[in-house]
């Protein structure tokens, strides 16, 4: 707690403090929510991430006006870059959205809650265990959640599969229909180039009990990242079969593909 106070004092500017205070995020009397989000830790996270977002990855975000100012929301994005940098970039973009700032929640792998420090820190800045019950409960509390339906298939894919959407899980569509939640598709361009990965050490990954072990750059490269937020999509139920869900998911995939293509056309190489 003393460390948090120290970091807040040193790192959080008056502007960031005020900007985060404007985000309509209900918390309890000590600044926490049920999933471990903490408003002070979030301010520190935003402050630390500011130069990474603005200077290192030089992120360009378009379509932020499509994000509703309140109410439940699912942001469905393509996943890439070996590390979950894309989730953090989407989170920062929404937190600093000039139209309507929001504290977006990201779903994390089941491995993280067991990792000392990491699990708690991720929770404090808004990440939560990827679990359908968690997701449904958060939507019932009108939260905005970013979901990467490709999961580790997307994050850990090798260079040869860059910008090729991997199989999408269907769970998010069931949730969207059950909870009457709009979906905002997000196309992310640039994260594939932050950690180009020719191949993985699968056997060693299995031995270490981690999802994948890429042979890649020792640190993320400063590729320019573009985030394209599409218009909200609303799907109506009921979903009677998994095929019904798959058809609806394909519509979201098509829109994400379109946004990715738009991002690829906009750029001139990896770094500009």
């Amino acid at each position, binding site marked *: *707690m003393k460390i948090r106070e120290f970091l807040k004092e040193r790192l959080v500017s008056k502007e960031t403090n005020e900007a985060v205070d404007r985000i309509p995020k209900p918390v*309890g*009397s*000590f600044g*926490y*929510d*049920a*999933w*471990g989000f*903490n408003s002070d830790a979030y301010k520190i996270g935003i402050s630390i991430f500011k130069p990474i977002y603005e200077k290192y990855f030089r992120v360009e975000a378009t379509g932020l006006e499509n994000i509703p100012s309140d109410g439940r929301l699912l942001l469905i994005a393509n996943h890439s870059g070996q590390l979950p940098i894309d989730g953090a970039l989407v989170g920062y973009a929404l937190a600093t959205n000039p139209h309507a700032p929001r504290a977006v929640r990201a779903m994390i792998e*089941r491995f993280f*809650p*067991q*990792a*000392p*420090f990491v*699990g*708690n820190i991720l*929770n404090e800045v808004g990440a*939560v*265990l990827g*679990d359908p*019950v*968690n997701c449904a*409960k958060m939507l019932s509390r009108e939260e905005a959640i970013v979901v990467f339906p490709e999961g580790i298939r997307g994050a850990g894919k090798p260079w040869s599969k860059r910008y090729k959407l991997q199989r999408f899980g269907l769970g998010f569509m069931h949730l969207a229909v059950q909870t009457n939640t709009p979906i905002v598709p997000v196309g992310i361009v640039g994260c594939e180039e932050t950690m180009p990965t020719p191949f993985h050490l699968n056997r060693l990954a299995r031995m270490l009990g981690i999802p994948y072990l890429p042979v890649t750059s020792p640190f993320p490269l400063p590729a320019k990242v573009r985030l394209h937020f599409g218009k909200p999509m609303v799907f109506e139920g009921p979903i009677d079969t998994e095929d019904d869900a798959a058809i609806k998911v394909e519509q979201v995939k098509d829109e994400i593909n379109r946004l990715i293509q738009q991002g690829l056309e906009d750029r001139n190489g990896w770094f500009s």
Partner: protein
Amino acid sequence: MSEVEKPEILITGAGGSLAQSVIKQLKEQYHVVLVDFRRRVQIDEGMSSYRVEYNKRGFEDIFRKHNIEAVIHLGRMGLYESTHRNRYNHNVLGTQRLLDLCHKYDVHQVIVLSTFFVYGASPYNAALISEDQPLKASELTMDLVDSVELENLANIYLWKHPELNITILRPCNIAGPGVLNSMSLLLSNSLAPVLIGFSPMMQFIHVDDMANAIVLAFEQNHPGIYNVANDDWISYQEAVVQCGCTRLPIPSAPERAPHTISKLLGLKAWPSYLINYYKYPVVIDGSLFSETFNFKSKRSLDDIFSYYREKKALGIL
């Protein structure tokens, strides 16, 4: 209303601070029969009070002697008390006897105090656990089997004997003046063990608010299973600091290390079988109870923590 005309209700665990707070609220309207297995409790002149084990034959005499209309079952052997076998005999078999007697003597309503511990602490727990989630505590340790079994038993009677109108309450950590559960003991200490790198979200309810919740459940009588918790949360490490404790860092790896250290320290407030609860969150959703019974806590988290902080500052704890 004279003492003779008042409806009679039986409250177990009458010596505990929670029960005393409940008794205080109900004694004007009801003739309260006090039962405790530890000691004979005397609160007011004229109250009937018994020291008796629920699974001893003498317990039935109370039902023969009094026309018990409702039972508020708060008396259970705490997690740090005795062996798990004794706790099983008292909490599970004793409760079974109590419920059998309630059925035999036409008791119209039973409130059973359970605990959030029954959900179990796991890294895969979602937050805001609702009442229909599985009870996984017995997967963790034999020491929590009695808590889960007590629940299962009450559930069986809830469906088998609907005329008993059983309400099961699963509160979060009850804390405040006079509370002697393991969490309250821990917050009362000057040193509080914390696992390095882990600080799960926790919920606390003031003992007076919990007493209000029990009284509401009794007065409104909507049988079923309910979590009882506020919409407010704090991390464990911050809670102990707020209570004026100094954190005692305990290595969290290798996995058995904290269990071994707990056994070596012999702290009854931080037993080895509860270590997962100081590592992973068990955050319950109390909205069903709040909406059904129109319940709202009157005490904040800071009210709870300031009690421990101030008592420590005065050197009382």
